[in-house]
């Protein structure tokens, strides 16, 4: 029997508040950031516990971007989110 492949899900740091305009405020550290509309779109999906693979598919549907470019950009973006402690951890 084959088990279903596990999907990576990101969790937003509970102390982070995100406004509908893409302003991010980390209430624990006082740091704040601005997201562009694509970044906000991705964060909204992370907030809904959308697996990373599904986020990629959704972005490919909505934006004019090649899968290769998206892979790199999304990896960079998620790396930054982790670095800034906006994303807390991943679950497989």
């Amino acid at each position: 029997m084959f088990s279903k492949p596990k999907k990576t899900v990101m969790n937003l740091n509970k102390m982070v508040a995100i406004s509908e305009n893409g302003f991010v405020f980390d209430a624990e550290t006082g740091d704040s950031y601005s997201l562009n509309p694509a970044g906000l779109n991705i964060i909204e999906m992370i907030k809904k516990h959308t697996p990373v693979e599904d986020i990629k598919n959704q972005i490919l549907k909505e934006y004019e971007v090649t899968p290769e470019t998206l892979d790199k950009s999304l990896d960079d973006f998620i790396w930054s989110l982790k670095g800034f402690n906006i994303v807390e951890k991943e679950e497989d």
Partner: protein
Amino acid sequence: MKRKKTDITVAATGLNNVDNPGPGIPVIRGIKDSKEFNPRIIGLAYENLEPGIYMKELVDKSYHIPYPTAGSDVLIKRLEYIHGEEKINVLIPNFDAELYTFMKASGKLGEMGIKTFLPTLEQFEERHKANLNEFGKKYSLYVPYSKTVVSEREIKNFAEEYKYPIYVKGKFYDAYSAYDYDEAREAMNKIAAKWGFPVILQQYISGNEVNVVALGDGKGNMVGAVAMRKLYITDKGKAWAGVTLADRKLIELTEKVIGETSWRGGMELEIIKDKDGKYYLLEINPRLPAWVYLAVGAGQNLPEALVKLALGLNVEHYDKYEVGKIFIRYSYDMITDINEFEKLSLYAEL
């Protein structure tokens, strides 16, 4: 039906609302915001050009008082005169350098009917920057290693052990970071020229600086506490803007310090949170800080609570505040007349 406000006369120092501001004006604003008191505010000033003296909407009358170096007897004599004119109910000193004199004078002031709510001499002494190592040990707190020194020669030994950068601090005021021997020596000379020796050398802890304003009731209970991170810092290292934080551990740490020291009065904790999430206590300032009005804006009127504690009234204990409240300082040119300055210069009151 609305309850009538109680008339009260409060005297406060620290009217130097300049680029390195004293806490007097923010403390006064908190008291003026009180829903229970109708305060008359008496400003106590050391210099003719302390801006608060001329802020008539906040300060009803101002008097010169002698510098702390004149001693508590001279201070008491002056306050006797002012009290005769104004019938002061509560006095709030707001400068570190004057606190000792006011603490010494507090008994006599109490006999005169002027209430204060200050740390005890023991609390005041043990939290001195020079005693930080012992303070950390006694209360199981992380503190950067600090050494009190009286000569430049000691810089090299210290830096060999703790490596640059290091902090060079005055006993009461001023702090500079130094990245090499020359910078450390220059900072030490600057501080010593202004405040004298000893000077304190302190290990540098890398991380985010956070601050807490808090109030202790002197029985081990925390009346309130608000955490803040500076968003904009002046070249003097002072906060020009800051935001309230939701950092439960920081508030718990403050509660522990207040609980274990039975802290009496206002305080400001300066803390570094390092990358591993450890909190290092850098300093305890034994009074409300100049950014205390942020706490008022976030829902904790700590200056009002301080007045109540001084009067022996029941105090509401604050257990929450609004996170994400920001303060931004600004400079403002007041226009006054030379006659005002003249009155203050000639009669020591305005």
